[in-house]
């Protein structure tokens, strides 16, 4: 198995941990909205929506924490990859059905995003982060500068990820404006 430099590995693990902890936390913060979003995907029968809406954010938060603990980092990354596959599949199915007006539910009530292929591209970026976190880290000893680099790089990845999500959320507004002025 290839090894990854610890700076890059910690950058990916740290950024992914923060991203998934935040999205799980936001879903948990307003479970009723998330349950509504789950139902809107029309993939689960109603009795199953509540248990799913409860467990998904819990798994997300727990696995996010696991990414920061070296012994279980691999399994945490695998759990998140599985979860992200489920979410991406649900989005893809509804995109294929043409149901693009429903809310993604990705961030609970904090940010509304309608379904679009951009969400899948964003999830692809998360897959890359998780794949990096899955790899074992090389034996290089981390110095102070390495630590600073890893922290700053992780922070930058988190901010860029959030910015990309705002771009995705703004897109329908811009399109609606274009339609209004046309």
């Amino acid at each position, binding site marked *: 198995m290839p090894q990854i430099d610890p700076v890059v590995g910690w950058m990916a693990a740290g950024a992914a941990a923060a991203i998934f902890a935040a999205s799980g936390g936001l879903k948990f913060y307003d479970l*009723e*909205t998330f349950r*509504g*979003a789950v*139902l*809107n995907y*029309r993939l689960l029968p*109603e009795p199953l929506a509540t248990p799913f809406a409860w467990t998904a954010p819990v798994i997300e938060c727990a696995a996010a924490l696991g990414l920061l603990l070296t012994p279980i980092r691999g399994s945490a990354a695998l759990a998140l990859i599985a979860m992200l596959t489920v979410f991406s599949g649900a989005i893809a199915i509804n995109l294929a*059905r*043409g*149901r693009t*007006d*429903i*809310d993604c*539910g990705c961030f609970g*009530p904090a940010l*509304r995003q*309608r379904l679009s292929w951009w969400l899948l591209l964003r999830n692809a970026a998360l897959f890359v982060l998780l794949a990096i976190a899955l790899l074992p880290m090389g034996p290089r000893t981390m110095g102070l*500068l390495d630590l*600073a*680099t890893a922290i*700053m*790089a992780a*922070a*930058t990845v988190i*901010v*860029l990820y*959030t*910015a990309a999500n*705002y*771009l995705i*959320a*703004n897109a*329908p*507004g*811009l399109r*609606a*404006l274009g339609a*209004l002025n046309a």
Partner: protein
Amino acid sequence: MPRGFARWVRLMLEALVISQVLLWVLVLAMALMMLALLRQVGVLHERIAPMGALTLDRGPKEGEAAPLFEVKDLRNGAPLRLGGARARSTLLFFLSPTCPVCKKLLPIVKSIRQSESSWLEVILASDGEPAEHERFIRMQHLEEFPYLLSADVGMTYRIGKLPYGVMIDDEGVIRAKGLINTREHLESLIEAKQMGVPSIQQYLQSRQAEAGGSHPHDREDGHEHEREDAQGEDQANGHDPLAPRAAAGKRGRE
């Protein structure tokens, strides 16, 4: 020579470390600036978005006679007539038990039913299994509303998204209709009936036309005022223009 070289390497390393740290700080600062900018773009979109209930140009149009229907009231099987001349105007409110925004709006619909009862009858409309809707009526205390279950009505009005409102006046003419996400959207339907303008978009367009062609400033001003009144309530109710809503899949484009 070796000593001079070692000193040079150390100086270089020091410079690189400083430059590295400084660059990271600047990269992060730029990313944060971009994030702030994109948030502002989102806020701007929200502020200039159309204010009234969003009109989707499908189904019977404003100003046309409402299609005639005779359906059964879910509560007691009594016949419910839609369209045609009536004693009062009718607000058809399309909803579904699985739509969170509908539930959030129900208290407002209830208060409108009471305060406007002199001239307005509010009818709830949906489709699906009667048992599910009967449970919904019990849980949300909707016993006082006429409640109709008819895929036919939903199809005729081309309801693609919920909650959706249609205002039919006492002569059976559709006065206004649109997707409803907030209290303001709902009130805009009532105002549209009272003012005789089918939608805020058309009101703004007619104002624009009066002002002599496109005068963007004029339009922005109009929004500004309405937005200010609206925002307090908007926050109090926790509504969001993009809140998840159940699209009525069986009827829409699927």
